[in-house]
């Protein structure tokens, strides 16, 4: 009998074009708080999804209390004593707190097919007391604050200890992203208090939080576990270096090809407002310039990008392209003005996965292949083949559904479809998310080349390093407002710390 509660042995998982997890091993001991850190795409989420049964590993094993287990659903994970508090909360807002805590586990309260609410109330109070939460179990979840709901989730996870008679393993996935400082402190206090009766896996990319809360920490990078440290023997600097991993080579982001922005203002954003999302956004983007927006989740940077792309409509403000005012809230107006939008949700908003390459490329502007009022399928096919050639898209053929391409190649199709519209401004929302390193470098190369041709970019990068490496100008956003604007010339890039200051 080892003294591990949870053990992951040599687990690998691949998706088309990406090895998401590569031979990863780790363990969690009883009454231990273990941290997982890594950049986006490092493999943390994939590992968590394997633990709660959403994915099945290609290779390797998961052991719980020394027994190999096959977890196929959240329910099975819970039967093994493993529960997750999700980043996007999973409580059902239209149900009460008690119903949420015991959702799918109501048997214990049922007599003759009817639920004994009084008993469920009592039991719910007992679970809530574990996280020192004193609320009415009959209150509706939708009436609670985000932080309180998170506590309810934690209580729900802790209810496993009664149901399974095991010490629970509770996974907290980025729990602090939208919490205020005081709420964060409270969460940490409760988590520490739970350590006596549970093991905690804490996932975050805030290194200071990891250092504050955990006993041990694993560092992930590009699908591999690159380091394991006792928290007391490491520091922010070391973790960061391990996480980013690569010596930031001067040329990874093709900084040598970064050009001076032109004089001409291509995109001008004035006093853009959307209550609850962003406020008083002002900036201008010049010809050939790359502006990177840095900010945490909830900073409003995604919403600003969606507004410029015409997908969302702001309450007030103006956007001008080459001096002409844009009709807001209309993707087609944005496209006609020369804006191309590469959305974060590539499979949902970027591409119609169940169409082949040609129809995807011509979708924003079909006039390229219209001949006397009808679609010329041959011309469309030739157009697709030209883009396959030019962008080096790896595909079984022009007729293949985009569904069957790897992430990197799908992204090239998205870029192609906008380039085919004679785009002047590219709005890129996480353009390198979920694509492998080689494909990332191709995207960087392409961005530089297009900037040289005069296309301007508004960029939300996948990582801070990417933001700094690619941008001419970095704008930081916090709580919907622009906090800083800093130059980022190739020979004098700001340090991550400078940028983070504007984000926090």
């Amino acid at each position, binding site marked *: 009998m080892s003294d591990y509660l949870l053990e992951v042995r040599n687990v690998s998982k691949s998706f088309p074009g990406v090895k998401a997890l590569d031979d990863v091993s780790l363990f969690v001991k009883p009454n231990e708080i273990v941290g997982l850190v890594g950049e986006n795409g490092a493999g943390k989420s994939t590992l968590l999804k394997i633990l709660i049964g959403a994915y099945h590993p290609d290779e390797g094993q998961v052991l719980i209390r020394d027994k190999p287990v096959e977890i196929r659903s959240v329910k099975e994970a819970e039967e093994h004593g493993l529960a997750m508090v999700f980043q996007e909360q999973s409580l059902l807002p239209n149900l009460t707190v008690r119903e949420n805590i015991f959702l799918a586990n109501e048997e214990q309260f049922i007599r003759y097919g009817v639920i004994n609410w009084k008993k469920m109330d009592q039991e719910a109070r007992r679970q809530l007391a574990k996280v020192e939460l004193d609320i009415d179990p009959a209150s509706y979840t939708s009436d609670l604050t985000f932080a309180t709901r998170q506590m309810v989730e934690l209580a729900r996870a802790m209810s496993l200890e009664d149901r399974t008679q095991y010490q629970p393993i509770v996974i907290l996935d980025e729990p602090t992203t939208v919490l205020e400082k005081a709420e964060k402190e409270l969460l940490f206090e409760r988590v520490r208090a739970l350590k006596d009766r549970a093991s905690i896996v804490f996932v975050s990319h805030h290194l200071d939080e990891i250092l504050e809360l955990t006993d041990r920490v694993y560092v992930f990078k590009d699908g591999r576990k690159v380091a394991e440290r006792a928290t007391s023997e490491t520091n922010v600097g070391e973790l960061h270096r391990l996480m980013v991993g690569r010596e930031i080579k001067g040329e990874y982001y093709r900084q040598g090809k970064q050009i001076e922005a032109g004089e001409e203002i291509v995109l001008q954003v004035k006093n853009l407002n959307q209550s609850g999302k962003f406020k008083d956004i002002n900036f201008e983007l010049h010809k050939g310039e790359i502006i990177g927006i840095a900010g945490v989740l909830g900073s409003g940077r995604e919403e600003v990008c969606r507004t410029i792309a015409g997908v969302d409509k702001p309450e007030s403000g103006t956007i001008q392209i080459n001096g002409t005012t844009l009709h807001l809230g209309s993707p087609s107006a944005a496209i006609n003005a020369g804006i191309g939008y590469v959305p974060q949700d590539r499979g949902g908003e970027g591409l119609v996965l169940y169409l082949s390459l040609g129809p995807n490329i011509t979708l924003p502007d079909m006039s390229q292949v219209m001949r006397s009022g009808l*679609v010329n399928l041959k011309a469309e096919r030739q157009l697709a083949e030209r883009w396959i050639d030019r962008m080096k898209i790896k595909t079984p053929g022009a007729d293949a559904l985009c569904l069957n391409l790897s992430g990197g190649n799908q992204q090239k199709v998205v870029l192609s479809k906008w380039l085919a519209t004679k785009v002047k401004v590219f709005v890129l929302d996480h353009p390198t998310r979920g694509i492998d390193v080689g494909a990332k470098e191709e995207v960087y190369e392409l961005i530089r080349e297009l900037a040289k041709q005069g296309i301007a970019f508004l960029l939300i990068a996948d990582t801070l390093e990417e933001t700094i490496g690619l941008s001419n100008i970095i704008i930081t956003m916090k709580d919907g407002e622009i906090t800083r604007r800093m130059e980022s010339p190739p020979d004098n890039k700001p340090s991550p710390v400078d940028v983070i200051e504007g984000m926090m």
Partner: protein
Amino acid sequence: MSVLTRINNVRKSTNLVDIMPITTLIVLIIIMSIGSPRFLLPASILGLLAQSATLLVMGLGETFVILLGSIDLSIAPVAAMATIVAAMLIPKFGYLAFVIALLFGVFAGWLTGFVHTRAKIPSFIASLGAMGLWTGIGFVVSQATPITVTSDDIFLTKWVTGTTFGVDNVVYIAAVVLFITFILEKYTRFGRYVKAIGAGEKATRVSGVPIERYKTLAFVLCGTLAAFTGVLLSARMAGGSARMADGFLMKAIAVVILGGTAISGGIGGVLRTFIGVLIVMTLDVGMNMIGINPWFQQAVYGGIIILAVALTIDRSRITIIK
């Protein structure tokens, strides 16, 4: 192994959606021609095609709505209303009555599309409401009594009921509608956008396609072709009645689905619906031959729709089925 996994395995092993309709048709035709050697005679085939013309026209319209991933349940009452409009107006307006009946279909389709897209009501509910609306209005307007085209006016129906080169005119008419809808589907923006919306509405919207407009247009086309079906029926039956298109809804959806157009949208097309019509007509003949009660045939089509969807639906695209 659960039924579901088994069905999914069958699905994956071949591209069933692509080959099943035509295979089914061929198998049915072989069985039929063994059972009745006269089945494959040109005269029988042309007879079959003439009989299936109305169903084809209606199914072609419904195809576009199903390609969107939506559904229009109001097509049978819209067709019935069109028979009433045509039959009532023929004495006064002559040929123009048919045009007015078609315009009614344009309006009915637009109304369903408008309610669906602008009021953001699921097409299932919007068209269910429209089904009730037109059924009710149809009975009131016709006073629940069949209206007949008098012998003075019967010549006005000859363009449908007559024959040219020995073939029923209605066969040519259906062929023209098939040709036009094929062009619409494959060679126009409308057809492309309808498929794109069905396959990925969000990405289509981000690409600047005015989703609501094209969805409404698909409903307009569907309503128009439903009314055209009514026009053909009124001419063939020399009259109009609120019950004239009874049973058409189930069959029109069956021909689209059996042809292999995915109920989830994006995949399929009018040629598949043509195959679907041939399957249904062959089945009709077959069921009559072995003496299945005509009233029970509805039940058979109900079962067939479910079976066809079970075999062809792509469950990896739909995680929650509502």
